[in-house]
Structures are given as C-alpha cells and as structure tokens.
C-alpha cells in the first residue's frame, strides 16, 4: 500500500449557497482497487463526483492523479486525466449506433469513416480483453439496459480511462445483469484499472469493494477496509445512529380476500400490450410484493388499479366489481371505494413540486365534506391543521405546511405522500417504489408504517424494483416479466437467485394464484 495513489483528493469543499454539499473531503485510492463510496441521498456523493468530472469547480481543495496535481475545469480535462464516468442515467444517444456513441467527442478527425473503422477495431480488442461484448452496429434503443451500461464502460475505456467512476450502477439492472457487471469490474481491476463505485446498497459494497468511504451530510465520516467492517457498522456511519437493517414484523394473519384480479390486460396507446392476463389476489392483513425489473408491467398494474388507465379483465374489491373502462374508472371513484395510491414517481405523480405541502396533502381530500367551508370555498385552515397533524405523526422534517414540496428532501417528500395516502384509512393500499431515492432512516420509518397498516387488517400491493425490499416486506411475492406474472413464491421459501431468474423471464412453474 505504499505505491502512489491513482487518485487522491485533499480538502475538497463545495457549497451551493448556504448548503455545504462537500466539506473538507480527502480520500486516497490505490491503483488496481475498487473503492466504494457509500452515503445517503444528499450526502454529497454526486457533488463530489461531479467535481471530479469537471461539472463543478470545487471552492477549495486539490486533486492529485498518479501523484500529479491536476486541475479539472471541465469534462474534457477529466477525460484527458484518465477519468471515465458511468452515470446513473446513461448519456447515450438512443438512435445512434454503439460505434457512433463511442466515438462521439473522441473522433480522430473531421471525417467519421476513419474514426469508425478505428473504433471498430479497438472495440473488438476491448471486448476480448474485458469480456465486454456488444454489437458495434446495434442501435442503443434496441439494447438492453445492461448492454447500454456496457457501452458506457466501453466509452470510458476507449478514451483510455484509468479511473472508472460508476454512479449507482445497479439501480436499473436485474440481479443477473448486476452479477455480470461486477464480474466485468473484477476483470478491470485485474487489468490494473482503478474503480470508484458509488452506491447506497450495503451489500454491493461488502461484496465487491476493497476499501470503502462513508459520506454523511457532505463530510467523509470514515474510510475503512471492507474486510474489516460490517454492514451494520457502515449503516451506522451513514446515518449517524444505529439502524435496523432487517424489517421487524410479525407473521401475517391474512383474513378475507380484499382484492381479486382476474385476466387483467392493458394495451397502451402505441398498441403494445403491457399487461397480459394478470390474475392475483390480496387478502386483508397481507402484503403482496410484485418483484420485477422496471418496465415489465408493474407500473400499468398499479395505474389500472389506481384508476389512471383503463383495460380489460375482472377486478373485484371487497367482492364488488371495479369499473375498468367506464365512468367510475377514475382515481376519484377508486378513492371512494377505499383504494389509496402511493405512485411510483412521487415527483411527477405523487406531488406538485411547486405547491405547498398542505396543498399537496389536500389532494384527494378536496371533495370531502369536512373540508368544505361553504358552497364556494374550501376550509383551508382545516386542511392546514390536518397537514400539521399528519406531518407530526409521520415525522416529516421540517414540519412546515407552508413549505413547497420541492424544498423537502426525497425521504420527506415520500413521507408526505405516504402520510396522505395511509391517513385515508384505505382497504387497499397500492404502493410503488416506496423508498426510491429515500435515505435509510426514512426507509426504516416508511417500512414500519406499511407493516402497521397491514397489521390493521388492510390489503397492500407493493411494487418495487429493490429485491431486498420486496423480500423483507412481502408476505407473498409475485414476479412480473413482460406483462405476465411469472410465478408466486413465499419469501421464506425462495431466494434472490430464484427470483432473479423469474425476473429475467426464465420460466418458473406458473402462477400459484
């Protein structure tokens, strides 16, 4: 460990107005290692990486690459310093080929032909060296997410990156794809590349990294050898207090069937069938978890049950049929029937970001008798008092009804949505990605609320792409792939490998519904 560090940061600080995003951050990464950076959302990981990639200029601090002090004023400088970045949201041109994406910005002259030929040769070479196979002539939009990510890695390698930064790389991958990615990363490490892995998933850190740094509120709270730490210790360092990583819940006591879905199908406006003959049921006091890679029909299932889209099939709630296409197939009618809906994307569907918290909490309640002052006006005071009460109960910070939704952190935004929906006291709660972009402390809280609602004898449909979340919360797990239910499992009888196979469309033994 005495060799020159591949990358060294000394005293990096960056403030956005009054917010100190990075405070005096120093790390040192040895060449040929995988270094993890873990921290909650808003801990400053992304800011730090943006500084490294020349998107932001640090207020203070120095960057050393292979012992050389290096200024990184823009992305071009980062690239020539040998830094490659794989963003969480890929920076690819969808209707370009793989080759075109790879040479973009790294062309060898005014004309494309020689650049493309050179890249084709180089790509073949890279594919052999790192087992990174991608069809160079495929259009990006026709590639799977895992392959798109490979293109991003190839882009960096083509630019001769020695240091590869990956920001939350597994968020969009199936478990199998994630395994493949980590094999590639291992291979890159063997070849002497330095890898920085940014993630909030403790398991990935434990499985793949050599060293790990923990960030909290803009500060680097610790850097440890992975072999000498534990997930519990890392979680504590991230949050600043002890955290329950395991969800504590009593065995379910399922009662009568609340929701029964038979042969539900949805075709979108492009004519693509998104849901194919889905059948399932949920009983009172039960959480049915829907596992699957994003985009396999889970969203449509949530939306049709929530009254946002229409489709065909038969759905009964408490024994009464639900209208799927007609007048009573809208969200308001659903609410009247006792369905509450925590949408998957809180920023676009759950909240209006420019509205005050109390206005957001009023949504769905604005027809309620008790909030009407008279024929013309709503009783805003009552709404605000109610919001205050809900905010206190759900520990929303800061508990200010007058604050605009966009000014809350991700976790607190989600708490506002969850509070609004759970406080309806629904018979059926539809909840999508309840903890996406939410910090560990808030995850713990939201999970507790969902379990509590279950224990009150409500039915809960949980959709999440986080397999850990599905496995720890659900009483029963259904796996969706390509609009179909691939199978149902009990959490205690299955494991991530089996679910991962189902998620990838490898047939199980049919639905047990």
């Amino acid at each position: 460990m005495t060799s020159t560090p591949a990358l060294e940061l000394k005293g990096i600080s960056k403030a956005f107005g009054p917010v100190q995003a990075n405070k005096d951050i120093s790390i040192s990464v040895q060449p040929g290692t995988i270094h993890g950076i873990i921290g909650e959302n808003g801990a400053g990981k992304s800011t730090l990486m943006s500084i490294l990639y020349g998107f932001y200029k640090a207020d203070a601090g120095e960057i050393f690459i292979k012992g050389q002090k290096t200024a990184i004023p823009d992305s071009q400088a980062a690239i020539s310093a040998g830094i490659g970045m794989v963003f969480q949201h890929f920076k690819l041109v969808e209707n370009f080929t793989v080759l075109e994406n790879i040479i973009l910005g790294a062309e060898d002259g005014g004309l494309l032909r020689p650049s493309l030929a050179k890249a084709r040769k180089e790509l073949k070479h890279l594919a052999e060296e790192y087992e990174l196979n991608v069809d160079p002539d495929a259009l990006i939009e026709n590639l799977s997410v895992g392959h798109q990510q490979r293109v991003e890695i190839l882009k960096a390698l083509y630019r001769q990156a020695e240091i590869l930064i990956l920001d939350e790389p597994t968020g969009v991958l199936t478990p199998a794809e994630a395994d493949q990615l980590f094999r590639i990363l291992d291979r890159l490490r063997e070849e002497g590349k330095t890898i920085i892995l940014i993630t909030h998933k403790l398991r990935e850190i434990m499985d793949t990294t050599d060293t790990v740094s923990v960030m909290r509120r803009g500060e680097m709270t610790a850097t440890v050898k992975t072999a000498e730490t534990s997930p519990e210790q890392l979680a504590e360092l991230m949050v600043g207090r002890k955290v329950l990583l395991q969800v504590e819940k009593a065995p379910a006591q399922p009662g009568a069937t609340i929701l029964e879905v038979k042969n539900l199908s949805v075709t979108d406006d492009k004519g693509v069938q998104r849901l194919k003959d889905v059948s399932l049921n949920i009983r009172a006091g039960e959480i049915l978890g829907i596992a699957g890679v994003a985009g396999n029909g889970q969203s449509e299932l949530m939306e049709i049950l929530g009254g946002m889209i229409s489709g065909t099939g038969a759905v009964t709630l408490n024994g009464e049929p639900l209208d799927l296409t007609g007048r009573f197939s809208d969200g308001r009618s659903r609410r009247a029937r006792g369905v509450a809906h925590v949408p998957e994307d809180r920023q676009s569907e759950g909240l209006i970001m420019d509205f005050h918290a109390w206005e957001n909490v009023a949504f769905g309640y604005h027809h309620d008798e008790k909030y009407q002052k008279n024929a013309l006006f709503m009783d805003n005071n009552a709404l605000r008092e109610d919001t205050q009460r809900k905010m206190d109960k759900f520990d929303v910070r800061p508990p200010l009804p007058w604050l605009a939704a966009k000014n809350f952190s991700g976790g607190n935004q989600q708490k506002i949505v969850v509070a609004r929906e759970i406080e309806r006291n629904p018979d059926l709660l539809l909840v999508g990605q309840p903890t996406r972009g939410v910090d560990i402390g808030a995850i713990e809280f939201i999970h507790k609320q969902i379990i509590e609602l279950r224990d009150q004898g409500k039915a809960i449909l949980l959709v999440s792409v986080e397999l850990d979340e599905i496995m720890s919360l659900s009483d029963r797990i259904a796996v969706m792939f390509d609009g179909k239910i691939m199978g149902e499992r009990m959490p205690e009888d299955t494991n991530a490998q089996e679910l991962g196979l189902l998620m990838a469309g490898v047939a199980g033994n049919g639905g047990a519904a």
Partner: protein
Amino acid sequence: MDFLTLLQVLDTTIRFATPLLLACLAGLYSERAGIFDIGLEGKMLAAAFFSAAVAYTSGNVWIGLLAGVAVSVLLSILHGLASITFRGNQLISGLAITMLVGGMTVLVAQDWFKQGGRTPQLEGAARFEPITLPFAIGPADAEAKGEQLSKLIAEASPLQQIYSELISGHPILVYLALALVPLTWWVLFRTRFGLRLRAVGENPASVDTAGVSVVSLRYSAVLICGVLCGLAGAYLATAMQAGFVKDMTTGRGYIALAALIFAKWRPWYALWTTLLFGLFQALELRTDVIENVIGMAVQSQLLGALPYILTVVILAGFVGKAIPPRAGGQPYVKER
C-alpha cells in the same frame, strides 16, 4: 397538356421550391441541434428587405446578398442568445423575431425609400439574372436570331427543351440551393461536426459528458440557419422578384417548417418535399393546367392549404412516423 406546358410548370416549381428548400435546410440545421426555430419567416423577411435595399443602394446584388445574410445571422444570434444562453422559450423567441421583423421592415422601407413600404424596382447588376448553361438556348440566342425565346425552345428537340427550359435559366441561388442538399447530407452523416450536431439535438448530456461544448455546437447550428435563411430571403427579393414588398415571404417560413416535419428532418427528403410544395404553389398560378388534366376546377386556395394539410396528416402518423430530435425545444441545463 403538352410537353412544354409541363416543363413550364416544373420550371415554376423549381423557382418556388428554392426559397422553401433554403429555409427548410436552415431549419434542419437548427432543429437537428435541438433549437426549434419558428423565426425562419422573420429572418427571411428581414433578409429580403435588406438585400433588396442594399442591392438597390449599392447597385451590386452580391453586396445586397451579403447584407441580407448578415441581418439574418444577427437575428439568429438574437435567437441563440434567448434560447441557448438565457435558456428562454424557443417558440416565443422565434415568434417575437418574426413579429418584430414584419413591422420593422415596412417601417424602415418607408423611411428610406418613401414608396409605401417597398423598395424601388431592382434592375441590372442589382438583381440576380438567370444563368444560361452551356449549350442551352437562352436570351442571347434569341437576340442573335431575332426571334422570341419561347419560340426557339418550342422548336427545339425534347431533350434540348428539358435542358433549356427546366435545367438552364435559373439564378445562381437556385443551383446553390440544390447543391446544398447533398452537401448537408454529407455534413450531417459523414463528418464529426454532423455527428456532434445530431447528438446535441438528441441528447445534449451525451455531448457534454464527452467533453464537447453544447453551447458552441448549438450556436454554430443557429448561425448556419441564419446564413441559409439569409440566402432564402435574398433569393425572394433579388432573384425571384425584383425588390422588396411588404410581407413578401407570405408564410414561406412556416411552409418550410411544415416541409421539415414532412421530410422527417432529412436533407434529401427535404428536397423532395419542398419540390412537392413548390409544385402546389406553381399549380396555384396555373389552375388551368389542373383543369385540363383532371377535368375539374380546383380552388387555388385548396392548393395553398395542401402543404399544411399534408403536414397534419404526417403528424397524425398516417404516413410513417415523424420523430423530431428528442431534445428539441429544451434548453440544456447541466445536471449533477
């Protein structure tokens, strides 16, 4: 309808298609880079006025052309400032430019020339004259033989008729516009600049993270757009007509935008589309030809509306899909 009439209609088609083609290619560069430009109309109109005004004053059409292009480029820079640098709404900026120019040209024209908002008639070197290609029958031949040009052409062989009537006898800007089609295709699909230009219209973040400046790419696209609009406007006032009159673009900027959608943002398709739209405009003048061919009178207004109707049909997805550049109309904001 006889062969010569057909040739005449096609000849008119080319004359009408040229400003559309130039404006359409102008829009193509801009929109391919992700900047919507509904100010094509305004830029053409400004270029039409200034090219005519300067050509008249200097007596040299090339100086006029330069002035028209310069003004159009200035307006492009204004649009660029509003939509790239200050990340404003591109539609509003384009609309503002068009409205501003619509009023200003007439005002300035009245102040300078006192002829009711028009420029004086352009003559001689102040105007782009038709070019007679080698071996074509042109006005010089007619003069030498002391006969009417149309009579000479009518007596020639069909091949010579096509060459002399249709291909020869256009001002230089027509040939330039036609040459710009393969050139644009080559630039877009065969050069580094083209690759980056297309990328910045699809996903500016990909260009930015590759270490290439989104802003300078978009400005270059907008500048090219300005130059081409300038050529289109100058063509109207100094080649197709002999001077500027109020609102002389008559919606050509918008028809060019419609053509751009119809052409799915591709250079060769842009040529075919603008020729088609040019044909409609040519037939508007020769409704007698249609009546002869289909034996039924067609309202010229219907022909005028056809480009828009066809565009709506395309947009509704009846004839393939027209997918605009994905980042079109959105200012680029760096994200973390």
